């Protein structure tokens, strides 16, 4: 199957703003799916509510656009009834960690064979840029006009602690690595969690001196520290500089998964 066939061509162009990273993540996901040679009828995309979750509407296969935060619970149902189905969940930072936080940690704990692509744009984009549990400390949003005064979640650490089999973080700048990570996530049995830092120039960038998508991409390039380098620095006693974040593959393990056919 061609890459183009994985898009619902009749739905494009999509609703995302100019410069939004969600389209890039959609590209990487579909590329990974295409590279693995999945068939349309055995692939299901499930998403919750939010900008990120509109992605399932642009994938040409069975797709379920569900309620806010509950995508993982819906996916659990689909996967347990049809274990041979490849189930990919698109979710956002607010969707996954705020309203769906409980479903998220329990999906990780069950280690159900899903691939979760969490598009973390640091804010609630669809409602106009309110602070989310992943808004960096001090960032300006419409509900934190004096700067975010709460600490953000580290979703990868959360997923790791809760028991996911594969955990990785990349940004929408690292498209090759991201595609590879999603591919690995789809191959590893059990819950695979891939966090993607994406740009939201419209609602996040414009309030935080990064009006252009290209400025946000530059920020990712500068602030993303590869895991190998971060590990080396930590060993040398150098802590991570403020504002920087680690990208790379954090966990790959083979704990017993749920929702995998016996023969696998």
């Amino acid at each position, binding site marked *: 199957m061609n890459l183009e066939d994985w898009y*619902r061509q009749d*739905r494009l162009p999509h609703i995302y703003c100019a410069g939004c990273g969600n389209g890039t993540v959609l590209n990487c996901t579909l590329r990974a799916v295409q590279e693995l040679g999945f068939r*349309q*009828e*055995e692939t*299901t995309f*499930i998403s919750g509510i939010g900008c990120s979750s509109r992605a*399932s*509407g642009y994938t*040409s*296969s*069975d*797709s*379920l*656009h*569900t*309620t806010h935060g*509950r995508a993982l*619970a*819906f*996916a*659990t*149902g*689909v*996967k*347990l*009834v*049809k274990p*041979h*189905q490849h189930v990919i969940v698109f979710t956002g930072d607010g969707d996954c960690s705020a309203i769906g936080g*409980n*479903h998220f940690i*329990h999906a990780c704990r069950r280690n159900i064979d899903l691939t979760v692509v969490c598009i973390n744009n640091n804010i609630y984009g669809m409602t106009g840029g309110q602070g989310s549990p992943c808004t960096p400390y001090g960032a300006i949003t419409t509900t934190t006009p004096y700067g975010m005064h709460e600490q953000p979640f580290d979703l990868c650490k959360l997923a790791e602690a809760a028991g996911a089999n594969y955990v990785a973080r990349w940004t929408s700048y690292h498209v090759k690595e991201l595609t590879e990570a999603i591919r690995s996530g789809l191959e590893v049995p059990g819950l695979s969690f891939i966090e993607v830092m994406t740009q939201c120039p419209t609602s996040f960038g414009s309030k935080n001196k990064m009006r252009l998508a290209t400025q946000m991409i530059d920020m990712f390039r500068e602030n993303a520290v590869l895991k190998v380098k971060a590990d080396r620095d930590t060993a040398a006693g150098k802590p991570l500089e403020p504002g920087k974040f680690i990208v790379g593959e954090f966990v790959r393990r083979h704990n017993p998964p749920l929702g995998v056919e016996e023969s696998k």
Partner: protein
Amino acid sequence: MTEKTDFLNGNVACAEGAIAAGCRFFAGYPITPSTEIAERMAARLPKIGGTFVQMEDELASVAAIIGGSWAGARTMTATSGPGFSLMMENIGYAAMTETPIVIINVQRGGPSTGQPTKAAQGDMLQCRYGSHGDYSIIALSPSSVQEMFDLTVRAFNLADRFRTPVFLMADETIGHMREKVSLHSDVEIIPRRELKEGELPCAPDENGVPGFGTFGNGHNIHITGLTHSENGYPSTDSAEVHEQLIRRQVGKIEDFRNEIADVDIVNPDAEYIFISYGAPTRTVRQLMADVPETYGHLNLRIVWPFPDESLLAFKNAKAFIIPEMNLGQIAKEVRQYTNIPIVIVPKLGGALHTPAELKKAAEVAKTVTKPMTEVRL
């Protein structure tokens, strides 16, 4: 026909009914007084190729059974009042996406945590109107353990025929009561209509119900809780699309309300008529046995959509007496369809009505002139 007679409580009979109806996926969360259903399903399903999963909360339980339903299984969950409140969000989603699911609500005293081990019928309006927006559902109300079995089977068939969430509104009395029950294994099964080749995923057939595009069958459909056009894609801007969609979804059930209806009419020529559903039906039947040929009785096995035409069977009716284990929720629905005076006999706290109390209400009914009178027991 293989038939097995057993002595079971209502919850277990319900689980057995679900298995007989072909339910192969159950997602639930423990809650008194419905937990026996989950326990029975957990024990039975893995042995017959089904899946049981205990979810993290009731929000997730409904979400999982909706997902399971789209993956092609007959799916069910069971809960009680507080859990039922949590389910409202995804019940609306199931209504909007026309997903066949069955939800068992073994009602207990509310609001909030209320009386976990006592019976009530306080969720009757919540099951009809609990989620936001206009939608319609089907709700059944069993009054015996045998009906817990039979109506559970019926619930699955109605869910698949009408593509809607179907509720079995039992109560703690029926759920925990043990009675003789015959468990048939070859029950009638009405399967859902699979989407045909070339048919649009949300285009209605002559009954107003679209074909069901099971995931994994190559339909490539998009299912969304947003307002969607007939091809299933979101179309939130158009007032016309929204109105057409909602009217069809409500109409596919409300237009068939008298076809769906399942009532018992006893003594239609009587002047004073009891209307009941669920546990109070048992008391009314006792009274009817004690003083035969005196009162009429309308027993509703299907409460929603309300079978309005069944009220017309009582030509000589002077008053409807409605005993309920709530403050008159269905009585208000009856009021909408009749000008005959209504006597409501609410009883809260978990105890059933006694025949003497109903007799007292029937005496009050002989004197009423107001449209609605409440008998305080």
